């Protein structure tokens, strides 16, 4: 698994296009949010900024990159090659996704630390960690499912749009307007509950037990995404 992961990391750093879309673009967007934190905190709250930053990295840095990577490794038959070794499927997928997941977590941690230093820290760090991990798990599940519908890395630019734009829209909506009204609609949308959880963790003022209930919809999306992935994921290109 680690040998697959390290070779994947080498490939990410050698491929400039992937490097730009997965690292530089999300970081640039996040820097904007952190620099203009007073403006965005006025629109929503610091918790909103934390949520939108997490989702920007998770959607573009992690999700879109993972879908593109899987489609490209399938298209050039690298997946088939890996499957002709003694490595099992789970080990192969974990190895392939580990570097993008770890890079995304490092980015989120760095940007949220910067936000905390500049504008004041979160009220519950442990809860924030849980919220970020749940978001990352959901986006990995969605990436596996989307990869099954994606024929090529170019095609990924289209197939990833509904989820990337969707979760950013949900995170913005829930992050700015809160869940005072339409609460369950907002919580059931993908990313809605995770956004609320991140907001609560940063802003405080909500009982931890109430917040933890918000994990359920996010983990529900993980289950749905993985179930879809097991039906949709393909290891070889269509003939």
């Amino acid at each position: 698994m680690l040998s697959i992961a390290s070779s994947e990391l080498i490939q990410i750093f050698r491929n400039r296009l992937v490097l730009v879309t997965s690292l530089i673009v999300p970081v640039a967007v996040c820097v904007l949010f952190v620099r203009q934190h007073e403006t965005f905190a006025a629109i929503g709250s610091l918790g909103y900024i934390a949520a939108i930053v997490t989702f920007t990295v998770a959607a573009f840095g992690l999700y879109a990159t993972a879908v593109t990577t899987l489609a490209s490794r399938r298209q050039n038959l690298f997946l088939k090659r890996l499957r002709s070794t003694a490595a099992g499927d789970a080990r192969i997928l974990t190895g392939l996704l580990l570097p993008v997941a770890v890079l995304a977590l490092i980015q989120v941690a760095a940007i949220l630390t910067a936000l905390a230093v500049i504008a004041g820290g979160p009220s519950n760090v442990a809860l924030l960690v849980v919220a970020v991990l749940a978001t990352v798990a959901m986006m990995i599940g969605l990436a596996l499912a989307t990869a099954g519908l994606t024929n090529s890395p170019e095609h990924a630019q289209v197939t990833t749009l509904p989820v990337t734009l969707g979760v950013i829209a949900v995170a913005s909506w829930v992050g700015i307007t809160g869940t005072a009204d339409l609460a369950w609609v907002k919580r059931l949308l993908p990313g809605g509950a995770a956004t609320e959880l991140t907001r609560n963790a940063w802003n405080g003022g909500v009982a931890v037990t109430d917040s933890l209930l918000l994990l359920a919809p996010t983990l529900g999306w993980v289950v749905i995404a993985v179930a879809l992935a097991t039906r949709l994921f393909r290891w070889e290109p269509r003939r």
Partner: protein
Amino acid sequence: MSTTPVITVDRLNLTYGDFHAVRDLTFEVRPGELYALLGTNGAGKTSTLEVVEGHRKPTSGTVRVFGHSPQDRRAVRPRMGVMLQESGFSPDLTVRESVGLIGRLSGRTDDVGRVLDVVDLTGRAGRRVSQLSGGEKRRLDFATAVYGTPELIFLDEPTTGLDIQSRDAVWATVDRLREDGATIVLTTHYLEEAQQRADRIGLMHQGSLQREGTVSELTRTLPAVIRFSLAAPVPALPLPAAVDADGKVVIETFALQKDLHLLLGWAQEHAVELRDLAAGSTRLDDVFRAISA
């Protein structure tokens, strides 16, 4: 040496939707032999190979490799090397990194430098796969198949796109592995390679095995052929003959030596010149043409 078959395929069927790619296929590969699975395009050999390699589940029937299901990667893969028909290497990795990665994942141990040397890619070790020529990519593929000297090696059209030197080098390596007892399963479009090297040949056509046996068993079923052309009218030939589309006289015979002697004696006696005379036992090509006709 054990005589338990390395590969056993029993009544294998494989269908894609309505298309029946493999029908009731049964064969086995014995330890140490070179078994060539040959066939026309679309005969089902790649599908068969994919099931035996563990890339595809059979629709029905059983396949065993070293007594295990080929899907059981942990049990089977460390003992077998696979050279795929299409490469499947990451363009952004170097040759050395690719061999190292796939080699390590095979569960065997070897020295990357040694393997690169065997396939003559030492000078390309630091190059990205995207910069390799087609022939170099085939050799890279071959390198991962022979990494760690596995007991069983699948070679799916190993020499396609290789120049003569590389082709000879590949076969020299295969010969060395065979001296150490390796079992080889080969598919190729170069029939002379199979004719020269295969211990046994399975000939597939339309999803099933049409013929199986040694080269001489297969070619013995068809007559040998004598061909020549005649410049002028001649007395009656001593043997039954036909004239082909190019105007050449064609004699088919199961007794080549005797009939050739008879023909040459007749030509000498009548002072007949047999132009472009050619005589030969049946080649695998002819067996091929006969099954697909």
